[in-house]
């Protein structure tokens, strides 16, 4: 046949072009900052991370996970076999039949991709993504027909040059999408960048069921020379594997669907944010972005370049300040992209370099620096709440079984009710407990989420220095934010103060007391109760069960909200969001209270003072908001002497 050379040539040309694109793309990632990654171990672990961890997340949507297995698996298998059968011309019936089988599998998968795209949900990106199922179908059909002669089904040279020519055009169309598009920025880019992102992920601890939620500390250098820039100003200030991670996005919009700020009409959409990061390091504008915009901000005006300051023209600072750091997007992302890390990195630049934390941010940070609490109260009044509690102070007793980390709730009258309820329970169970009193400082959570890592690190180091002078086995707190800092973020500062110390949230601790039979509780006889999972307890620390078991111990059958456990919707109180207070169309707390109301519950149990404050801020009539410690304390059977 005259055109025998055409098909192999087309395949090789596109493979070479894809190779060039891959090198070009890798150089874009390499423009980022150095970060140590165990390359070999990562690459070796990649298949398992893909097949297990990633699939586990994708599998929350059975339809797409099965579709993807068929399409993706079929394509990878088919592409490898295409190279053997059609490029190297290996003459083997077995290979040809295997290729046919792979293509049939891919075709079936692609049909479901096509079906999904007939009436796609708003979270999915359109544009080039609408063309993808057609390219997938073309690829599978074309190579199926092309492989039939090799499998012996059709005679060699069937159809003559006309069919070869038609097939070549189709090959060009489909392979351009599948190979060329993979490395030159088409929708298939997610496969190439995604595979490498899984291999070189910045938080490898997340794979295999692990958890890694603590923010990475800012490197302030050696104290002699000052770094040129703190935080992320330009796309090239990200670590190289963060840039790679942004490129892995499939624009499935699962993050958008769960983002509380997006739902509230604040100018944030996690998917768009990641796409803007790609625009940043690859250069260009957001004109070609075909998904939902940031609420209230029109598309087409954002411009970016690798060495351009991100907040000058690419992203409005309000977008970054809208985030509540609830991690719903990260939890939901099938590509395991770290949105929150990126947002806080950019906030660090705004706070540490530009001094432009919005609204009350500046004042709160100034207060934390001058008084070690966000509201500027006298540090000597930190223990006033406990004047009638007869609690031992570490300064006097030096050691105790349990150190009760009071947190800044000590200054807030509503939170003090939670603190008192918890103390009452601990006393009833005869817990050997002490507090730090005025020696305790703010945990640094708010400062860190507002981007002021200098103040966070100062607080962390001073707190650790205090803690290291006392002996205790457990540290328990009613504040999930302080809990998260103590448990996951204080470890970066080279102190052994928390070594061999168990850091516990009060619900976990109380659950143990109840299980050990140390608390006598009478069943709860109120109405229906639902439970709101605080982000920093649930998604950040994986504690979903202890609060539910506690409620069950009171005979409460929790009426679960549609969005609960790892899908819990944020109350709007995290990440300094109530301080920066970016306007939206609705309040996040109002939406969460609607979730509560829809269960028909008359009370919502909470395990966090911030959540309590946010949910109680919703106008009445609404269900009662109570911390689990308060509910338990109300049911406590007190011994009478």
């Amino acid at each position: 046949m005259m055109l025998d050379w055409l098909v192999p040539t087309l395949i090789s040309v596109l493979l070479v072009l894809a190779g060039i694109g891959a090198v070009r793309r890798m150089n874009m990632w390499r423009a980022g900052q150095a970060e140590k990654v165990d390359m070999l171990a990562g690459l070796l672990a990649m298949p398992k991370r893909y097949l297990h961890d990633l699939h586990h997340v994708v599998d929350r949507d059975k339809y797409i996970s099965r579709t993807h297995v068929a399409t993706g698996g079929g394509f990878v298998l088919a592409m490898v076999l295409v190279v053997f059968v059609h490029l190297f011309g290996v003459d083997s019936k077995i290979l040809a039949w295997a290729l046919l089988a792979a293509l049939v599998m891919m075709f079936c998968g692609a049909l479901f991709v096509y079906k999904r795209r007939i009436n796609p949900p708003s979270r999915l990106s359109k544009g080039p993504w609408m063309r993808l199922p057609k390219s997938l179908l073309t690829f599978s059909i074309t190579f199926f027909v092309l492989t039939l002669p090799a499998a012996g089904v059709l005679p060699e040279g069937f159809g003559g040059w006309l069919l070869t020519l038609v097939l070549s055009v189709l090959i060009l169309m489909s392979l351009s999408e599948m190979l060329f598009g993979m490395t030159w920025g088409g929708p298939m880019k997610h496969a190439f960048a995604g595979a490498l992102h899984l291999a070189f992920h910045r938080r490898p601890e997340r794979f295999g069921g692990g958890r890694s939620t603590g923010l990475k500390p800012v490197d302030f250098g050696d104290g002699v020379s000052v770094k040129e820039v703190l935080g992320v100003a330009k796309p090239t200030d990200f670590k190289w594997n963060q840039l790679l991670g942004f490129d892995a996005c499939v624009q499935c919009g699962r993050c958008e669907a769960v983002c509380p700020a997006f739902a509230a009409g604040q100018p944030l959409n996690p998917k768009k944010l990641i796409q803007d990061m790609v625009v940043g390091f690859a250069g260009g504008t957001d004109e070609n972005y075909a998904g939902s915009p940031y609420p209230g901000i029109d598309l087409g005006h954002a411009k970016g370049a690798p060495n351009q300051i991100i907040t000058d023209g690419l992203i409005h600072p309000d977008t970054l300040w809208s985030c509540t750091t609830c991690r719903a997007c990260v939890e939901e992302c099938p590509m395991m992209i770290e949105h929150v890390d990126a947002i806080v990195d950019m906030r660090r630049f705004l706070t540490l370099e530009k001094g432009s934390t919005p609204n009350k941010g500046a004042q709160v940070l100034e207060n934390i620096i001058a008084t070690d609490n966000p509201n500027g109260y006298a540090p000597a009044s930190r223990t006033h709440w406990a004047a009638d509690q007869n609690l031992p102070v570490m300064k006097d007793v030096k050691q105790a079984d349990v150190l009760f980390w009071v947190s800044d709730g000590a200054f807030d009258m509503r939170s003090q009710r939670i603190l008192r309820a918890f103390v009452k329970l601990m006393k009833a169970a005869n817990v050997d407990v002490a507090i730090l009193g005025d020696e305790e400082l703010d945990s640094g959570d708010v400062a860190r989420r507002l981007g002021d890592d200098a103040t966070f690190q100062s607080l962390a180091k001073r707190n650790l220095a205090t803690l290291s002078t006392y002996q205790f086995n457990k540290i328990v707190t009613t504040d999930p934010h302080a809990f998260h800092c103590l448990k996951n973020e204080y470890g970066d500062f080279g102190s052994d103060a928390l070594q061999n110390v168990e850091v516990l949230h009060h619900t976990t601790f109380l659950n143990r007391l109840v299980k050990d039979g140390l608390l006598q509780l009478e069943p709860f006889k109120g109405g229906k109760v639902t439970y709101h999972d605080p982000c920093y307890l649930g998604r950040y620390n994986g504690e979903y069960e202890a609060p539910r078991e506690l409620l069950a111990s009171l005979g409460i059958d929790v009426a679960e909200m549609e969005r609960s456990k790892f899908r819990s919707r944020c109350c709007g109180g995290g990440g300094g969001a109530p301080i920066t207070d970016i306007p939206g169309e609705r309040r996040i707390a109002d939406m969460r209270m609607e979730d509560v109301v829809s269960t028909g519950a008359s009370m919502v149990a909470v395990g966090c003072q911030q959540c309590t404050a946010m949910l109680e801020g919703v106008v009445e009539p609404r269900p009662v908001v109570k911390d689990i410690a308060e509910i338990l304390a109300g049911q406590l059977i007190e011994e009478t002497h």
Partner: protein
Amino acid sequence: MQPNVNVISLVSVGRHPQSGRARRAEQDGRAVELGLKLAGKNLTVVHAGNPQEPVLRQYAGMGLSSLTVLEQAQGCDALPALVSFLTENSVNIVLTGVRSENGESSGMLPYLLADQLNWPLVPRVADIVSVSAESAEVLLALPRGQRRSVIVTLPFIASVDNAAQEARQTAFGPGLRADFHVLAMDTVVDEAAHQWKITAAKPRPKRLKVVKAKTAADRMKAATAKPVGSGGKIMKNETPEEKAKAIFDLLLEEKVVR
């Protein structure tokens, strides 16, 4: 505004009222803010004291590329150092806080400076609206949000009231990177202050408040009004001679002029 006008803001180490910790002083921060508005990058910020003081970085973090420190040991009088610095440099406007948050906190520094330099002093400024080659239009802060506009000839010293624009947020990175120009000065130990014994202030007993006001508006007035001296008269249509006579009579009466 006027690039050829030299503006200097004097800053001190403040003290947080709740924690007692060193901080960027409230009014001095406003003096820097006003200075930045007038002179932008050309603003000179001067501190007399210890150049190692970390709080100075908080001022530098407002966007200053450098900060001048007249090096002094603890317990030295800032006044002579500042006077010699200001006379050696051609300065048009000096901005200070009304009173420091630390030390004597007498609020005398701007007055003494003005006296020694023989410059006019504009107390409690809310804003400086415009500056020309010879003079500046200054808004004075009066009680209850009132303002008075005055024209002052350069050079002058102004103390910045709490009514002025709040100091911008300080940024950690630029604060660390700012250069400190440390100048060695002939220091004078403040002998008088050396003799004093400083103790913590005791809260003064509060006078009982008898509410006489009948309406909310009256109560508001009573709560916000500063005591206004009775007597005096407003002269608008009289001749300049009559006005001058009235002032002279008053000065005689108050025994200012003998």
